[in-house]
């Protein structure tokens, strides 16, 4: 009994450190969230933490900031643009990568090792190395500022990691699966479609959430290939422009930022398990 109480007492600093870190981490986001629901007069007059002086006075909150950024400042449009960019930019590379990962994992062909080592190298080639030549080609082909252009650019940039993660998973499937299926006369495509893909669902979920978040949150690629035109610009581009033009209107900036964070946060909280698995597969092994 005595030992236990000593242990508990010694755990107090531990709890304090952990809670302090968690508090510091969450505080900035809380400020953003609260500010996005305050009136512009309140935001200019006092800090967001002053609402805790009257925590149950709900009359001070407003949705006006969200109405304004979504309808008047173009964040609604930017949200849709982000969706139109992100969904194909997620599906295309995963489709292409799952075929490639399957071949790399279970088929023999000359150059297999060479191509795979190239892939591992491409994992970290900075995409800055590719921007100028691709932008020039896009300009010639009329793809700059269009959605298909950025879909394939994101597919290209996402492929190395997606193939790599799927390869790690698919190559770990038991080899009997492939031997016995071959003996039963199943073609490679049937094995792929009926066994490998269904068995790889957890890994596919991981790479989907990865690629989705990466594209959703991307600024540089959109900035370079789409530019700032409102009919294609995604949230990241629009909001960074707002930071320049509405620099002091915190109630608007915070509302716009929260619109951009909402979907990623829901996905993250719902699928955190797969997100973590993807990170672990990509970094500990890689």
């Amino acid at each position, binding site marked *: 009994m005595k030992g236990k109480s000593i242990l508990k007492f010694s755990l107090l600093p531990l709890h304090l450190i952990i809670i302090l870190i968690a508090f510091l981490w969450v505080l900035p986001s809380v400020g953003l969230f609260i500010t996005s629901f305050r009136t512009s007069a309140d935001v200019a007059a006092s800090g967001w933490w002053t609402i805790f002086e009257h925590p149950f006075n709900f009359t001070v909150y407003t949705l006006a900031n969200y109405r304004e950024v979504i309808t008047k400042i173009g964040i609604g449009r930017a949200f849709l643009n982000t969706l139109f960019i992100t969904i194909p930019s997620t599906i295309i590379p995963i489709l292409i990568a799952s075929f490639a990962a399957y071949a790399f994992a279970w088929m023999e062909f000359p150059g297999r090792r060479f191509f795979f080592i190239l892939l591992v190298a491409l994992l970290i080639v900075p995409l800055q190395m590719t921007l100028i030549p691709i932008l020039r080609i896009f300009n010639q082909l009329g793809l700059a500022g269009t959605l298909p252009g950025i879909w394939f650019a994101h597919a*290209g940039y996402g492929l190395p990691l997606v193939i790599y993660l799927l390869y790690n998973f698919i190559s770990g499937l038991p080899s009997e699966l492939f031997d016995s299926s071959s003996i039963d006369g199943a073609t490679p495509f049937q094995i792929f479609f009926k066994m490998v893909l269904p068995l790889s669902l957890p890994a596919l979920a991981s790479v989907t959430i990865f690629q989705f978040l990466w594209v959703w949150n991307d600024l540089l690629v959109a900035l370079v290939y789409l530019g700032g035109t409102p009919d294609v610009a995604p949230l990241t581009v629009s909001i960074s422009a707002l930071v*320049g033009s509405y620099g002091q209107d915190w109630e608007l900036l915070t509302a716009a930022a929260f619109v951009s964070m909402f979907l990623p946060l829901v996905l993250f909280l719902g699928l955190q398990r797969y997100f973590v698995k993807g990170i672990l597969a990509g970094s500990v092994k890689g």
Partner: protein
Amino acid sequence: MRTNKITPWLYILPAVSILFFFLVYPSLKTIYISFFNYSSEEFIGLENFLYCFTNQVMLNSFRNNALWVVVFVPLTVFIGLIVAVLIDRVKYESMVKSIIFMPMAISFVGAGVIWKFVYAYRPATTAQTGILNALLSTFKLKPLPWLIMRPWLNNLCLIIVGVWIWTGFCMVVLSASYKGIPREILEAARVDGANEFRIFWKIILPLMKPTIAVVSTTMIINVLKVFDIVYVMTNGNFNTEVIANRMYKEMFLFRNYGRASAIAVILLVLIIPMIVINIQRFREQEAIR
């Protein structure tokens, strides 16, 4: 698995052609045009590189990136490690982990807005709405314009945003590695009378070393490529420029494709050691398989 000669190529051809078109070919092309003038019409040898290593703004951006490496990498890895080891002992582990990990889900642009608000500055005569300056004024201190305090304080302020975002990544990876250490080893040391600090230094740290190395290299790569945070929060003004921002400006503001390419090549050269480490690690792993 047995296949005919053509089948594997059908499976990898779409991937390989996209990779060649979007990564391999343009990278080689960028190296090529880094030896040409702004419009890529005239060969000028190493002039662009010479510019990068003599121009004061470029030198500043190298210095700032170095500062990012020196501050950001140890901080993310250290806090990540501490949290990973400590948090294993409390019941609310998953909640705290989610909180620290959450910034990974949002964009750097969103994080930039969040933190610009934290650093918000108004003249001392009005109420401070940024939490940091409000904190200063409760201690009767003068508010600081954090993001224009060049060159150290504002750069550190940007680096903290990066730490806030990436520590969760380090924590998750290091925590998985920590949980992989057999509990019997730690228990045995405790029974032998070793205190927690000794256990940490003599057992936990050596066992986690490979993972710490992986996480650190990942962080170094991130830091060399850092762009969004600086673009959103200061746009490189007040001496906060970093390499990737310089490249973007040379490309879009000054339309100097030669210099922009040279900067990209320098970035690649800085990252090449990491690529080599990655390939080596991959080979070792294949050898075990």
